Structures are given as structure tokens and as C-alpha cells.
């Protein structure tokens, strides 16, 4: 058998020999030619000092610094490098007891004899200064500088989140983090952790037997440089945020304000809240446990994103819009109201009303009849079919699913699918009247304050919205996730929005029977809608949505004041104050401001038995 390719065996051999020769030459270079890698006998220990980059800072939308860093010092220990020491003197130096010393040493040895572990966390500046001087007496111990967070104002805790030490589980999962490192939890700190944290570096030093640094190893050629974390420009207006938190003191509820033209969240208040400074440094774990166990106030629970309420009458504009788009009513369609429609009651007002008047008067009958026409539309084969169509409009407004914001925890809310009613009543066994309470935002439906603010922004924009987001830009070059510049258009004509907005303007601006006059601001065209969210566990929640100015909306807002009753009573004034504060930076109605600041709803809150799961 003749093999024409037999000579190729030499090529294969040559390839193998060349490959191995390359390995040997390289080994010769690093092991024999370069002496940088070799260590002399008396400084035969290398120390790897992690270079922690400064965590990125957080600014508000106007460039005001909200979160910065402060230095802290951890004492680290490498058990295998320690020698017999005067424990008493050592403990006195650091203000610790011998028990703590023994306990910490045991923990460190259990972790690793040769790798560094944290011996003492965040020692005081005074202890640091003293220890620094005497450190050479204690081989195996050294100081690791770290940075802690510092807050310029005690506000916006729910937005910012906090930073805490990584736990064992995470260290196993993600090799970037080592024992004693910090990581962002909740809020911006968690959502933008990878941008804020930067990249650690390592400096390698030669150390003698007395733990003294003898110099940089291999002239620093093996070191890696720490990369500073990127700064975050938040979209919030810190002054507005502070004012909102002040207004919500001694109350329970939330405020979400959005700039309609961009989807940027201007303010997001969830009351009760806490001072973010409580979760920094050595006091952190104790304070955190306290906040977590406060089941009465639940300060860690972010209502703005995580609480789901029936939207109540604030939902009427959307149902009006769907009616218009489906062609079952026009702006001029009038419905009579005799203090109610079938079994749904209404308050006393003039009758009949057209659509803008019905919005301004918040007439239940009008929207029940509209909703009935929507569901009994001959265009669709069945009520179920029409219902599915109606629900698709709501989904376009961002209801029933997560909006996809840059908040870590966000509730989806609930818009019942048709099958939900099939289950209770049987397929094709339910009619428009079965679900008529949805017409006025009551019943099985659940929406979050954030979703309501987003809906308001979509109305203000006359039919589109940008996904709400809390970060305006990452880094000073203004990078932003492209999903936040994606326009979500709602399939409803702009003209229809004008009809509904006319009614919302009337509700505040004093059309006959207006329900929200209290929210009016002289010189600013505010459009709003009151609402009452039914609460089976206690007094109803006061809800108000609004945007202003009418023609060039700068702010869209949703306010929830829990256990405060009718929407106009408390939520509307809060919204009005927030709008004026944002647009004018001053308050004209001092009396109303005073009334809200003094309002204390703690009694009502105590009677409420609603349970929320606090979320870390």
C-alpha cells in the first residue's frame, strides 16, 4: 500500500517540536533570563493588597451631590504570618477584649491560614492612627482601607438603596467578591452595582519576616490597577424629593413624579421611610434588624413600587379614552345620572353630562354605561372577546405587567385575564354587568403608584410614554440604557386625549361640579383626577393623579395617602404642593401646606390591618 502523503509525518513532527520548543524558550526566559520573578531569601513573602476603587458617586438631576464616600479602615490578618504577640497590649491598642481577639483569630484561621481575612471591621480614626504606628510589632496584621457611603441629606433611602457586606452564598457564586467586600442592595446601588463598583486592582509587595513592606514586587509590573466606579446622575430632583418626604411625614403612602417628556422619575416617596445614614458602617446590622422588625411602620417596604391598590376613580380617564377609541362614545355623548347606575351609586350632580363633564364630576354612571358599551360592542363576537380587547389597551398603558424600570423590585400589578372570570362564572356565563366595577377602577384590578404615575405621563403626552427610570445617565458622558429612550405608543388617537384632558383640567380648574378644586394653582393649568382606593381592612386610601402645565407638561404625578378617605381631601393638596414646588420652587398656599405638614394619620394607620411583606 503506497501512501502519497507519507512525508507529511515530518510536518506533523515539526509542528509538535516547534510548539514544545516555544514552551521551553518561554520557560527559559521567565525562569532563567528574567530575575524579576525570583525572590531573595530574606524577603520571601509576597503580600497582595487589594486596591479598592472608590465607589461611584450619585448626583441628582441638577448635579447636586447626594451620595459620596468616606474612608474606613479594616484590620486584616494573615494567620500563618502572625507570631506570638503580647495579646494584652494588642487588645488595648484596638479597644477590644481578649475574648474578641480569640474569637476573631479562630474565625480567620477557619477561613484560611494563608489568605487574609478581616480581623476587625471599620475601626475608629483614633484607633487607626494608634495602630498604624505600632503595626510593625504585629506581623501578619495590616490595615485595609475601604470606603463607606455618606449621604448629603437624610432622604431618598428607597431610591438609593444601601451598601452592605457580601454574604457567603454570593462569594461562592461570584468570584469577583471576597470576604469583607461591599455590594449594593436595593435601589440604585443594586441596579447599577456593576457600574458603581468599578474594578478592583491588586498591588503586590515584598514583605520581610516582621511584616514590613520592603518594596513593590517586580517593580509593580505584576500589579493591576483599580478602575474607579462610574458616577451616576439620578433623575430625581433632590429638593423635590426632600419636600415630598416632608409632606408625607406621619402618614403612610407614596408619591411618584415623572417628567412625561423623558420618563425620568423626578421624585419617588414611600412613607414611612428611614434615614439612609442608618445603614452605614458598624451600626448597620443593628439598625437594619430594627427597621426590618418594625412591622407596624414597615419602613423598608417600598410602597411606590411594591404596593398594589385598586386605582379607583383615577382609572376613569383611561376607560373614557378606550370608549372614544372604540367608537362607542364621542366627546359629546351624554349619559344621565340619577345618583347611580343600577347597583353602582353616584353622588349628587347635574345631569346629563358629556365626557369632559363626567371626568370633572367623576360620575360613576357615565363610566359604567360607557364600559357596558365597550364590552357589549357588536364588533366583537362576545363580551369575553371585547374584554380581551379592552385589556390590551390597559397593557399598552403599562398595567398588568412590570414596566421594566431600573428599580430592582417592581410589582406587576394585576389586570384579570378573561379566564379569571371564566373560572368564577363559567365560560361565556359572565356579562358586562358582572365586571362593571372595573369601569370605576374597583374590583379585582390592582395597580402600583408607579404605574399610575406612568399612566398620567402617557395622558399628559397625549398617547405615549417612556419607561420610567431613576437614572438619567451613567458616567458624565451621559450613557443610558437604550430601552429608556424607546417610545411606547398607545394605540389611541391624540384628539381623544384632548377630550379627557379637558375634563381633567375642569376637575381642578373649577368646571361646574369639579371634584378637585383644592389642587388648583394660580397661573398653572393643572389637570387632575381624584380617586378613592377601597380598603377592606380599614379607612379607604386617598388617591390623586395630575400633570401640569396642561399644554407643555413638565410633571406627571400620582399621590397615595393611605387611610385618608376621599381623594380630594389629602392626596390632591399633596400633589398640588409638589407640582408648585417643582415648577416654581415656592409655595403660594401656605395655609394648605401647613395643614398637610401638621396632618398626622398615625391613628388611622394603627387601625388598618393590611399586611405587606417587607422586602429587603
Amino acid at each position, binding site marked *: 500500500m503506497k501512501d502519497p502523503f507519507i512525508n507529511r509525518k515530518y510536518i506533523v513532527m515539526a509542528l509538535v517540536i516547534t510548539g514544545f520548543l516555544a514552551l521551553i524558550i518561554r520557560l527559559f526566559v521567565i525562569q532563567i533570563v528574567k530575575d524579576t*520573578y*525570583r525572590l531573595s531569601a530574606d524577603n520571601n513573602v*509576597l503580600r497582595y493588597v487589594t486596591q479598592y476603587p472608590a465607589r461611584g458617586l450619585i448626583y441628582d438631576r441638577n448635579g447636586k451631590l447626594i451620595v459620596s464616600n468616606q474612608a474606613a479602615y479594616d484590620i486584616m490578618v494573615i494567620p500563618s504570618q502572625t507570631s506570638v504577640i503580647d495579646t494584652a497590649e494588642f487588645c488595648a491598642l484596638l479597644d477590644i477584649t481578649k475574648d474578641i481577639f480569640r474569637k476573631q483569630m479562630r474565625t480567620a484561621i477557619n477561613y484560611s491560614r494563608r489568605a487574609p481575612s478581616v480581623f476587625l471591621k471599620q475601626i475608629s480614626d483614633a484607633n487607626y492612627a494608634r495602630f498604624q504606628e505600632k503595626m510593625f510589632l504585629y506581623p501578619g496584621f495590616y490595615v485595609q482601607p475601604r470606603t463607606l457611603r455618606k449621604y448629603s441629606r437624610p432622604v431618598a433611602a428607597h431610591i438609593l438603596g444601601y451598601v452592605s457586606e457580601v454574604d457567603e452564598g454570593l462569594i461562592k457564586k461570584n468570584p469577583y467578591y471576597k470576604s469583607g467586600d461591599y455590594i449594593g442592595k436595593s435601589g440604585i446601588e443594586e441596579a447599577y452595582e456593576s457600574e458603581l463598583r468599578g474594578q478592583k486592582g491588586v498591588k503586590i509587595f515584598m514583605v520581610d519576616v516582621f511584616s514590613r513592606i520592603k518594596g513593590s514586587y517586580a517593580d509593580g509590573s505584576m500589579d493591576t490597577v483599580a478602575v474607579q466606579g462610574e458616577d451616576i446622575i439620578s433623575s430625581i430632583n433632590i429638593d423635590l424629593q426632600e419636600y415630598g418626604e416632608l409632606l408625607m411625614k406621619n402618614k403612610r403612602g407614596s408619591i411618584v413624579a415623572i417628567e412625561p417628556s423623558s420618563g425620568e422619575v423626578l421624585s419617588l416617596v414611600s412613607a414611612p421611610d428611614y434615614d439612609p445614614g442608618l445603614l452605614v458602617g458598624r451600626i448597620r446590622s443593628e439598625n437594619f434588624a430594627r427597621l426590618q422588625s418594625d412591622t407596624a411602620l414597615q419602613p423598608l417596604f417600598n410602597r411606590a413600587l411594591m404596593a398594589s391598590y385598586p386605582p379607583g376613580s383615577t382609572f376613569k380617564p383611561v376607560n373614557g379614552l378606550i370608549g372614544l377609541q372604540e367608537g362607542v362614545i364621542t366627546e359629546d355623548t351624554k349619559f344621565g345620572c340619577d345618583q347611580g347606575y343600577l347597583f353602582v351609586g353616584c353622588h349628587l350632580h347635574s345631569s346629563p353630562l358629556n365626557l369632559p363633564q363626567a371626568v370633572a364630576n367623576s360620575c360613576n354612571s357615565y363610566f359604567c354605561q360607557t364600559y357596558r358599551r365597550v364590552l357589549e360592542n357588536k364588533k366583537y363576537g362576545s363580551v369575553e372577546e371585547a374584554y380581551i380587547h379592552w385589556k390590551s389597551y390597559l397593557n399598552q398603558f403599562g398595567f398588568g405587567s412590570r414596566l421594566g424600570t431600573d428599580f430592582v423590585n417592581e410589582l406587576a400589578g394585576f389586570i384579570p385575564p378573561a379566564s379569571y372570570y371564566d373560572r368564577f362564572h363559567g365560560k361565556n356565563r359572565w356579562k358586562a354587568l358582572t365586571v362593571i366595577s372595573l369601569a370605576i377602577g374597583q374590583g379585582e384590578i390592582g395597580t402600583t403608584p408607579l404605574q399610575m404615575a406612568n399612566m398620567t405621563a402617557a395622558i399628559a403626552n397625549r398617547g405615549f410614554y417612556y419607561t420610567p427610570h431613576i437614572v438619567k445617565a451613567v458616567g458624565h458622558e451621559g450613557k443610558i440604557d437604550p430601552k429608556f429612550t424607546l417610545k411606547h405608543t398607545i394605540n389611541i388617537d391624540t384628539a381623544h386625549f384632548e377630550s379627557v384632558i379637558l375634563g381633567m383640567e375642569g376637575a381642578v380648574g373649577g368646571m361646574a361640579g369639579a371634584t378637585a378644586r383644592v389642587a388648583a394653582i394660580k397661573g398653572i393649568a393643572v389637570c387632575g383626577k381624584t380617586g378613592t382606593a377601597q380598603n377592606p381592612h380599614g379607612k379607604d386610601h386617598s388617591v390623586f393623579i395630575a400633570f401640569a402645565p396642561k399644554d407643555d407638561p413638565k410633571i406627571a404625578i400620582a399621590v397615595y395617602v393611605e387611610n385618608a378617605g376621599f381623594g380630594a381631601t389629602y392626596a390632591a393638596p399633596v400633589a398640588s404642593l409638589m407640582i408648585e414646588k417643582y415648577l416654581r420652587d415656592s409655595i403660594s398656599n401656605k395655609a394648605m401646606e401647613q395643614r398637610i405638614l401638621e396632618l398626622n394619620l398615625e391613628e388611622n394607620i394603627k387601625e388598618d390591618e393590611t399586611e405587606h411583606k417587607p422586602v429587603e
Partner: protein
Amino acid sequence: MKRSINLWNSLDKTSVILFLLLVIMGWFNIYAAVYNEEHTRIFDLSQRYGKQFIWILAAIVTGIFALIIDNRFYFFFAWFIYGFLMLLLALVLVFGTEINGAKSWFEFSWFSLQPSEFAKFGTALALAGYLNTRRHDLTRWKVIIPASAIILFPALLTALQPDMGSTIVFIALFLVLFREGMSPYVFVSGMLAIILFFLTLLVNNFYLSIALVVLALLLIWFATRRWKIALGGGIIITIITAIFYLINHYVIQSIDNEIILLTAVLLSGLLVSWYIYVKKAIAVFVIFLFLLGSLVFVNSVDYGFNHVLPDHQRDRINILLGIKSDPHGTGYNVNQSIISIGSGGLTGKGYLQGTQTKFKFVPKQSSDFIFCTIGEEWGFLGSFVVIGSYLFLLLRLIFLAERQRSVFSRVYGYGVVSILFIHVFINIGMAIGIVPVIGIPLPFFSYGGSSLWGFTLLLFVFLRLDASRNEYLV
């Protein structure tokens, strides 16, 4: 009885001795890598070296079995073994346990198995079976394509895990096709495509594109032996690129630089086409096509990687390519590894005296980075002995492969050579920083049952085939 005596007589003892030498050196080095004061007994089963001892015993039993089985078994069951192992590779994607970001292990209650380590053996066997029956005419595409498919199928399955190391090992089997007659042009362009693929992921594409253009111009210079042509081509491309760049910068503003360069090269080609046609400059034409092909290739790989692959897959590939895997910044792992090896000097620090490797600064010391311990404790001399042993073994195996009478045995032998070579080269190359960090064990050395058994099976089946090289298979 007579048969077993014959077997012993015709067994290649040199290879067996080298095998035993490597396995024992490996075991002692794993002991050194894991060594700590609390556990000093080398047979301590709670430690890796203790377990490795059990794996070694099992490997020797595996080797003996591979020798006892009739040589025709491997020939007749090649496809069956291949099919079974491919099935395992597919199943591990579904039922496997994810370790270090790759789904490549079956985990049972008392031990875990990595099917890809055995699939290498199966693929070499199937390749041998195919080329034997087809009279191995690798000059024809009709043979090249199915043969490539046998190799690429497991390469694809392991890439999905994703276990880039194993993928590369399978691809190394193309060396066998080259030995058996595949055109060197096909072989070289295939290898270039693979190298370019990795460069695309590792290097900035714009610079890579520029480098390709410069390389093409240099090739034109060497091919035509006239620098004016290369310079002229360079000037034309530069001018057209500049014009496009300015247009994009001021008017369109959305086109990537790489695409501008690609378009410019294409237009330059049209411009000089008359020259190529008139002067019949075939070499220039071929080089130009090569350049254009490479640029399109680079851009499409980049596009596929950044736009088509889902995020988590991309992250995984990045991690496996070592792009994001360094917890302490770029190059940390490799730096640590080089420091330990470099600190070994000529003669090393002595057995168990390594300081760097003891501090757990080097990751995966007993598996992927086992060479650090060798380099640090045994120095250049020790490293030389280890590499020399591998070289000796590989050259011996090539010699054995060439003395086979059947195509089946020779192809299989070259399969063994390719697999072992790529493992040794990448593993040591990675530890000394001339190859990107790709997790792949050092044959017979690294800790781990699956890889040790896989390699033992691979080698001893070949030694079995070699032992009866004078018998006919069919």
C-alpha cells in the same frame, strides 16, 4: 495464554513507561499543590491527592482492560462508541450540572463524570473508522465534508456547554485530516479562520481589520516583489477610507469604522481590477480575495457575537475566553501563574517548598494550573524534564502510528497525537502566558478522574491496536 504472552511481547513498553512516569509525577505534584500542614498523609482520601491515587489505580485497570479486549472490537464498535458518547454530550446539556459556568458534568451521588473527556476518544475512533472504509481520499470534498462533520459535531456540542477548551481539542483533530491528505490550503485557511475567530473576540476589530490590510499589502509586496504596487494599494485604500470616514462623520454618523474600512477595501479592489486584469496578476487577486474574505469574516463573527448571541451566552464565552474571568483585573490569574513559575529559577525551590503555589494565589492549582507547581518547585530543569517526556511520548506515538499497516490504526494514532499535543501545548502555554486562559487539563498530570481515564483509554486503545499491527483487522 499464548495470546497474552504475545500481547506482552508486542506491547510498546516505552509508551507504557512514559505513561506511568507522567502519572506518578502528576500525583506527586497534586500532593504538593494541595499540601497543607493539617493533612500530610499522601493517601488521605479526604484530599485530592488521596482521591487521585484511587483514580490512578482505576486508570491502570482501565488501561489493562483496553489491552485485553480484542483489537477488532474497537474497529467494529467505533461508530457505536462514537454514537453513544455523542448522546452523552447531548444529554449533559440537558441533565448536566453547571460547574464554573459550564454544563459539562454529570453529577452522581458519589462521583461526577465529564463525558467530553471520553468523547475525544470516541471521535478519534469514529474518524479512524470512516477514513478506513472510504479509502481515505481526502483530496475530495465528498470525503472532507463528512470527516469534518465527525469532528465538528462534538466540537459544537461542547461549545454549547460552553467548554471552549474541549471544542479546541476536537478541532485539533483536523491535523489528522491533513496528515491523511487534505489539501494544505484547506487546512491552513481553516486554521486561519479559527485563529481569526478568536482574535476577533479578543482584540479590537478595527485594529484587527487594519492589521489584516497591512498584512495583505505586505503579502502583495512579497508576492510581486514590487513595493510600489503595495504602496499604491495602501494609498488608494487610505484615501478612500478617509473620504468615507469624513462623509460618515459629518453626514451619516452611524456607520462603524470597521464597515467603512471594509467598503473602502471593496471599492479599492474595483478600482485596481483593471490592473489585475491587464497584468494577469493572479497573486494580487488571490491576496485581495483573502483580505476581503477575512474582513467579512471578522465583521460577521463580531456581529453574530454581539447581536445574535443572547447576553448570558456571550458572558459565558467571555468568561471562558478569560476576558471577564479575572476577579482582580485583567491578567491576574496569568500573572500569578507566571510569578510562581518564574520564581522557580533553574532548579526550583524543592519539593513541597513552593511558596507561591501554597498561598492559593494561583487558581485551580491541581487541575488547570498544575504546571505552576512543577515550575515553582522543580524549576526550569524539572519543567524541561516534563515537557521532554511529553515530546518523547508524542514522537514515539507518531513513530508507532507510521508503522501501522491499517489506515484505521494509523488515523487513530494520529488522533491520539493531536489530542495529547493540543492539551499539553494549551495547558502549559496558558500557565506561562503565551496562550489565552482556556481551562483544559494537562494529560495524565492534572487532578480528576474523567480526564485521567479518558486519556488512559485513548492511549491504551492505541497501544492495543499497535500490539497487533501485524494482524489484519478484517
